[in-house]
């Protein structure tokens, strides 16, 4: 057995990370579109919009992770 084999990650943990990343990406995209619309260019989302949206999304993601889904097993553990 190699050293690598001694390190393992639960499937539900790996799956939760995929969902968090996806949720973060969706939230950034949605908020960036809102920011673009508010700035008067609803059809053009820029890096600046994404950067601002990412900062907002990080905060809401932190709340979502603490709320549990989709890794609520961690709370029970």
């Amino acid at each position: 057995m190699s050293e690598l084999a001694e390190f393992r990650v639960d499937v539900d943990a790996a799956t939760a990370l995929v969902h968090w990343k996806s949720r973060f990406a969706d939230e950034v995209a949605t908020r960036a579109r809102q920011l673009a619309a508010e700035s008067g260019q609803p059809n053009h989302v820029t890096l600046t919009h994404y950067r601002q949206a990412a900062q907002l999304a990080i905060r809401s993601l932190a709340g979502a992770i603490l709320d549990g889904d989709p890794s609520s097993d961690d709370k029970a553990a």
Partner: protein
Amino acid sequence: VTTKQPKSEPPQPPEAIPGHADDWIRQCVKHFELNLVDATRRIALDAEDPDLQMAAARAFLVTLIDSGLQPDSALELLGQAALERSSVDLAWNDVLNQRRFALIDKEIQETLTPAESTELAGLTRIMREHVEGETNLPMEGAKVLHRKLLRLKPQGDSD
């Protein structure tokens, strides 16, 4: 004498992608990652790169099928992508046609390798696109005939 000052090029806007493509990318990445986790749960704990590459290939194929493609169409897409990387001229021609026939012969003889199977799927897709393409419809003869008919003077109106 005034010398012309070189005009400075206007700043190019950054490259952009369509909004729906941005949505599609996120969905594709999410499903690919979930499928990859699923494919990876079945491999040995001491799996090495080739095992993980195989899992990635399986996961991507499932992701394409999840996106609405039939399995055969997904394989054809992968085959076409592989051919595009091989710097072959992908405009349908006699060389590609001959190659497709050769691969079909091997398929019948059951000597087709997995790589050749992917190549055959890609060639089939390119051929189908060529055959179904509007530019390949036999319209030129019809257009010539149409022009001739337009030039004809009406005759025998009184008949």
